[in-house]
């Protein structure tokens, strides 16, 4: 029982970050039918910007981060993330024009590689300490399981984001975005500024990425170039597919499911002392293949 609760607690922590990354992926896919491989780096770059604010912009230095500045730094990171998202749409996606989903995925993979390389050259290929908004944790009532306060912070942020998105999709611009996703031509005829709606979706995805980057770096209390792509992106992708690729609630549910499955895989390997390296990565591949075999349209998806 104790182990099950522990798996759930850690699974929810990772899963919430997968959900945040996944929301950005699903939003962009919904609005522009593009699977954005650069979503992870839309998180890492703002996280580095936040770190720079906290250590006083000495990129190569070893100064400890000033945790008091975390909140303004996060706000700046979200703004940078949104700006990056819009820039990515304007500079790369729009000039691409009408291409196959595979081609646009290739383009965003190139962007991810470009951003990672810039990070390596500017911030050096090493791990940097990254603070959490709240340190420590508390003992879950009636058990021995320690829950990080940081887990609650992530869950609260995710809940806030979910509420904001739910409210947004009921507002006029939200409906315009849905119309753009459904049928851009018809939406345009109804006076919806289609280009602006798409740019907005990419901007929002960038902001979500920035939140995932800052909170995700907090989970490991460290940040390296390419961090979000290597740590959270692939489970988030799988979570989005599991949830039904265009479904926003599906992205969150899928993220949590992937978080719990990965954690359970680690737990099983340690409990039974199995000689299996990389259990979370194995679990992610198995889940992805299983979803595609059994239910390719995902849990809440409309069509594959």
């Amino acid at each position, binding site marked *: 029982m104790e182990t099950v609760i522990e798996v759930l607690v850690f699974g929810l922590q990772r899963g919430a970050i997968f959900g945040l990354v996944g929301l950005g992926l699903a939003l962009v896919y919904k609005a522009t039918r593009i*699977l954005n*491989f650069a979503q992870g780096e839309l998180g890492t770059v703002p996280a580095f910007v936040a770190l720079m604010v906290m250590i006083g912009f000495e990129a190569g230095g070893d100064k400890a981060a000033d945790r008091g500045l975390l909140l303004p730094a996060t706000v700046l990171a979200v703004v940078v993330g949104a700006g990056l998202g819009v820039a990515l749409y304007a500079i*790369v996606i729009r*000039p*691409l*024009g*009408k*291409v*196959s*989903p*595979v*081609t646009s*995925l*290739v*383009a965003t*993979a*190139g*962007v*991810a*590689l*470009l951003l*990672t*390389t*810039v990070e*390596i*050259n500017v911030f050096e290929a090493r791990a940097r300490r990254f603070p959490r908004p709240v340190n420590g944790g508390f003992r879950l009532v009636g058990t021995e399981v320690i829950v990080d306060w940081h887990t609650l912070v992530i869950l609260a942020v995710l809940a806030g984001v979910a509420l904001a998105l739910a409210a947004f999709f009921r507002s006029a611009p939200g409906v315009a975005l849905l119309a753009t996703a459904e049928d851009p031509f018809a939406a345009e005829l109804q006076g919806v500024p289609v280009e602006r709606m798409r740019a907005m979706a990419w901007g929002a995805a960038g902001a979500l990425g920035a939140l995932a980057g800052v909170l995700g770096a907090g989970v490991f209390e460290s940040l390296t170039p*390419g961090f979000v*792509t*290597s740590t959270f992106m*692939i489970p988030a*992708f*799988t979570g989005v*597919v599991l949830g039904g690729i265009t479904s926003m609630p599906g992205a969150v549910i899928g993220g949590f499911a992937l978080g719990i499955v990965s954690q359970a895989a680690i737990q099983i390997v340690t409990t039974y002392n199995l*000689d*299996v*390296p*990389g*259990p*979370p*990565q*194995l679990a*992610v*591949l198995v889940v*992805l*293949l299983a979803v*595609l*075999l059994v239910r*390719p349209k995902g849990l809440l998806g409309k069509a*594959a």
Partner: protein
Amino acid sequence: MNVKPSRLLAFAAILGLLVLIPQVVPVVYVNVISRAAVYGILALSMNVLVGYTGQASLGHAAFLGVGAFASGYALSELGMPFGAAMVVAALVGVVAALVLGGVALRVSGLYLALVTIAFGLFAQETLFNIRFLTGGGAGQIAPRPSMFSGDVAYTYLCMGVLFVVLIFDWRLLASRPGRAIQALRDDERVAASWGIDVTGHKLLAFVISGAIAGIGGALFASIEQIVSKEDFGLSLSITFLLMTVVGGAGNRWGVVQGGILFAVLPTILDRTHANFHVFPFTQLTATWEPAIGAVLLLLTLTMFPGGIAQQQAGLLSWLGGGPFKHDKAHAPAQGGGMGARP
């Protein structure tokens, strides 16, 4: 094809230059040439997928890796000869492609890309850490065949295999399944209405791609004669995709040049950085190489969808026996490039 003496002369000159390269390059860089040949093979492998069917793999470094480890295991643990180890590597690539493609291609090409990403991560963290197969962190020894044990000799072996794969690729496209695979890329529905098994031929293309990547892996393993899991990360997978697109997806001469370019670029950057003390070179170290590749990719996709091959369309057409034409409308030599598909 009417073979004119001028063309024969051009072919002979190109061939002669290629044969000379390993002889004239400084000894320390001979392995870079081997690597370039392997990248050329990987580009052809990727081209079968990207250029001929419009699918993409973001996990080809893992295919290179399974080929390399399979060959290393067959060579040093099972004591197989080099040729047999290469066959084992190709078969392992085939099996991996069958499993992944069999599941993902039933749905859509986008899912194949996703599944290959997840496979790449799984290979890196799980598969390549299985101690008895891959030697864990220490790496797997992969000795060269005794006939080709020297660096220069091994380079000729790599170039020879690249040449064989090129011929295979050329004959493949001329075959019935090859034409069916190309028909899919142009229009799946039209192809299906002609009675072509769409999913089956996509899977066939992926399997061929996996086999070629496995062979490339076997050669790659014996360049340094030790295989370690750090060699096969996600960024290498993206690089393989970049060089195919930048070379000109769909054109075998173009993608091979793309592969060679991306293989030698880090070394070139290192040399220019060390020797030229003026502005761009003082900043450009080999660590910037992926960024240069990514910028080339984005320029290719947005402005020159036919890649390197498009720039050389006239030359390639002339070498192939046609007139020297530089016709923008027919530029991507064999119909397509990344931008041409719906």
